[in-house]
């Protein structure tokens, strides 16, 4: 009986430790952390720099630049990425930073859609996200966003794929343990878009999530699909209070 109680206590302790949110950076090796901390050597900053140029560039039939409406990004975009995904009254849905940039490009600039994971889309995402660096994630999950939030939480807990695993089985119950040569993180979305060593390029959280679907041998949801948006909303809520590090570096 006493032994059972000890085991139960130990289990409780593990759960309690696992639930304190920690940035994915803490699960990375020393060299990755050093690379992210150095704004010059951080390769993700190449994209942010390109995004800064794209911000000023006039495009589309309207011949407008981002700056024509939004002014300087340092002021107008401060904090924006930390609040997303959020309900969008014009799109009448929960939308991500990527979707909002894309909607602006099509609707306001009259330009062609930015394909998901294209250099142009990632560069602007990186530049806009950079303006919220260091700010705590804080997303609204009530009101009209509630349905998406519930879907995200549901997906996070649902077993999928041939491996029959849900997100929480690795990123909550096994976080901190070693999987092959990697330490399993808590799956906190603070660094995205991030430069991932495996890709040797900048990628969005959607690309990273799709990689997880592939990892458990499940069907990958399409870019900008409701499932991925819902997961992003749930993950951002779960990471509440953690500081945004974008554009970060990950293994």
């Amino acid at each position, binding site marked *: 009986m006493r032994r059972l109680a000890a085991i139960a206590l130990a289990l409780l302790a593990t759960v309690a430790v696992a639930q304190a949110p920690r940035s994915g950076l803490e699960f990375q090796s020393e060299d990755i952390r050093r690379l992210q901390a150095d704004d*010059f*050597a951080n*390769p993700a*900053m*190449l994209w942010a*720099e*390109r995004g800064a140029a794209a911000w000023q560039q006039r495009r589309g039939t309207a011949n407008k630049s981002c700056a024509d409406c939004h002014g300087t990004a340092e002021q107008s975009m401060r904090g924006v990425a930390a609040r997303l995904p959020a309900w969008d009254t014009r799109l009448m849905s929960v939308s991500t930073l990527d979707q909002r940039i894309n909607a602006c490009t099509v609707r306001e600039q009259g330009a062609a859609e930015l394909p998901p994971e294209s*250099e*142009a889309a990632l560069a602007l995402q990186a530049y806009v996200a950079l303006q919220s660096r260091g700010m705590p994630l804080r997303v609204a999950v009530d009101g009209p966003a509630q349905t998406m939030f519930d879907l995200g939480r549901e997906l996070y807990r649902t077993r999928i794929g041939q491996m029959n695993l849900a997100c929480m089985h690795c990123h909550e119950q096994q976080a901190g343990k070693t999987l092959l040569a990697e330490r399993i993180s808590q799956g906190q979305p603070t660094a995205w878009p991030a*430069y991932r060593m495996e890709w*040797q*390029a900048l990628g969005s959280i959607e690309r990273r999530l799709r990689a997880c679907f592939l990892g458990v041998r499940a069907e990958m949801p399409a870019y900008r699909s409701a499932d991925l948006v819902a997961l992003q909303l749930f993950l951002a809520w779960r990471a509440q209070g953690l500081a945004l590090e974008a554009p970060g570096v990950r293994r």
Partner: protein
Amino acid sequence: MSEAPGIGRIRVPPRARRGEVVEIRLLIQHPMENGFRRDPLGRAVAKNIIHRLVARYDGREILRAELGSGIAANPYFAFFTRATASGRIEIDWEDEAGVRGSVSAPIEVSG
């Protein structure tokens, strides 16, 4: 990755004392294709690496590098030189597709 090759960032200390050793840092956005990869349709991706990189200080060559396919995408370089006179540090490079890129930054030397 290769929509706009030749993009790079350079960092040179803006001011230095004469004779001081300064660090020059360079980051280039380049795929550094090693020729062993295949695209999603299974076609071989042609080898394309930056094979030549030259740094000049006021026109005088201070560093020349011949790079190989063992260097990762988006290569980062750091090297040192002695500040002799005010001028520009210019770095240019060329990849195997013949695309060239260059960056430069001024340095002001006092004393």
